[in-house]
């Protein structure tokens, strides 16, 4: 069964379409990474799924229901971002007590343990915490609410490397204990790649690709060699990225449909063939046809 289904989903703000004819399904109990550049429409999409925002057109179903203003969806969804409006008058410990009352599967033992581990004093107030500490508290709430649909929208904002690592580890551990559908949005793909099962890559509100992470790692190949040789090889291929590395050499990223024979030929003419990491590939795929930041410097 699918936890989330979107068909031609559109969210428009005036003429701007933040989400533009997006169609995809998220299988239940999978961890999906929602990847995209700033302003790609990640947050808007997630807030529609969480039932906060209303779609403009198309269809969106969460647990087979329209999520907007839906109590069942709300009871089974937790949405964590860096903008949690916790009241100023409650201490962290009291906030956990309140969360426990709202979420049926809440695990207080783990939540308190995590608070202790991250040195968050339950007697402190939320608004007194630093940005990174706030984020840490947010993910603790998001994780141990154990909702069937758990959404983390850039949850690690301001967290130091150690805290981020601990969070990813806690996420994976608790997911294994208590499987659920998790959507994790981030632009730091290389950090979260290892815990993701699927990746949904979007740009300008549109879907670029949606596939398991291992497939993404084999999706493309990087070719490095003399420019004129690469130009020859690039013909009749889908070019994902091209850049000059200087000295008449170029780096070309193409879809991975190169035959054994071609590989052999390439090696003969001095072209290195390398794998392209998922993180790099996502950057190449979403940087558009503009040729990268180098172009800005070359032209001006």
């Amino acid at each position, binding site marked *: 069964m699918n936890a989330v289904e979107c068909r031609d989903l559109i969210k428009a703000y005036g003429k701007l379409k933040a989400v533009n004819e997006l169609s995809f399904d998220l299988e239940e109990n999978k961890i999906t990474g929602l990847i995209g550049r700033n302003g790609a429409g990640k947050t808007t999409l997630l807030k529609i799924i*969480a039932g906060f925002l209303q779609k403009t057109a198309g269809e969106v179903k969460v647990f087979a229901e329209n999520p907007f203003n839906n109590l069942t969806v709300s*009871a089974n969804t937790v949405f964590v971002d860096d903008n949690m409006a916790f009241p100023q008058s*409650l201490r962290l410990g009291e906030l956990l007590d309140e969360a426990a009352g709202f979420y049926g599967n809440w695990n207080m033992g783990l939540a308190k343990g995590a608070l202790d581990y991250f040195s968050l004093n339950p007697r402190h107030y939320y608004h007194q915490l630093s940005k990174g500490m706030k984020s840490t508290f947010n993910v603790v709430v998001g994780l141990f609410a154990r909702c069937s649909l758990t959404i983390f929208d850039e949850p690690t904002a301001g967290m130091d490397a150690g805290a981020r690592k601990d969070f990813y580890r806690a996420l994976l551990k608790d997911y294994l204990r208590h499987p659920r559908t998790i959507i994790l949005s981030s632009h730091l793909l290389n950090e979260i790649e290892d815990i993701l099962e699927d990746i949904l890559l979007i740009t300008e509100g549109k879907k670029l690709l949606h596939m398991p992470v291992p497939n993404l790692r084999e999706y493309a190949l990087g070719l490095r060699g003399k420019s004129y040789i690469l130009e020859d090889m690039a013909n009749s291929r889908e070019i994902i990225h091209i850049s000059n590395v200087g000295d008449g050499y170029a780096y070309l990223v193409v879809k991975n449909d190169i035959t054994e024979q071609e590989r052999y030929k390439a090696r003969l003419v001095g072209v290195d063939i390398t794998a392209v990491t998922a993180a790099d590939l996502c950057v190449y795929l979403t940087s558009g046809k503009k040729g990268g930041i180098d172009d800005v410097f070359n032209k001006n």
Partner: protein
Amino acid sequence: MMSLTKIRLFYVTKKQYKYKLMAYSGLFWTLAAVQTIAILLSLGGTGGWNMGRGTILFSIKTLSNEIIVLLTFLWAFAVSVILTTKSYRDGDAVFVSNRLSSNLANGAFLITYCLIGGLSAVLGGAVLRLIFFFSTGGLGIVSQNFFLSPTELAAGFAVTTLYLLLISTAGYLCGILVQCSKVFVVILPSLFFGVLILAGRDAGIREMLLQAINFLVHESSFIMLTLKAILITAVVFGIALLISNRTEVRK
């Protein structure tokens, strides 16, 4: 197969109501502050005159808790508007909620605050009398209406609470309208003052306005007043609910 938590509207509303009582306890202290200020302002008396000839001098002061009640009305209006603002609305959406549960919990919260406000406004009148009694001594006090019977206190409490309810639902609707579109920040005050100005010029409009006010203010039957207040509150709150049911949260 995933198992979804089934949740009832009543349960969530109750939970949210309790959460609000704790989370917004700061608003309670604003009531305490407003009423303390009101009591201090009332100590000077709300009316009176001086009269004298030769060596005999009269000074008459009227004392009432109308300043306390008026400021409590203002406070109720402000609190209900505050409840509709973005940070409070988004606060609901952090945990389980939908617009209906949020609004109902706000309604229950406002009723609680009106009861507290009504009770403390009436008791404020008693505090005022006590302070006056001990500061001037009993001799200078005209005893008429000085002593409050329990029935008078209860009636004062009930009527004040009913008016507080009317005012806070009006405030709530204003807040919801403003949240819906910022245009209402301009429209609502213009409408309010526009009607007042027109009433000052046009006798017909003045008559209509007075009738509308009399409908609520000059109601001698307590039961009728209760019925009117509850009916109007329910209708106005229902309108607020309908309008806000389509608004987005955590934008």
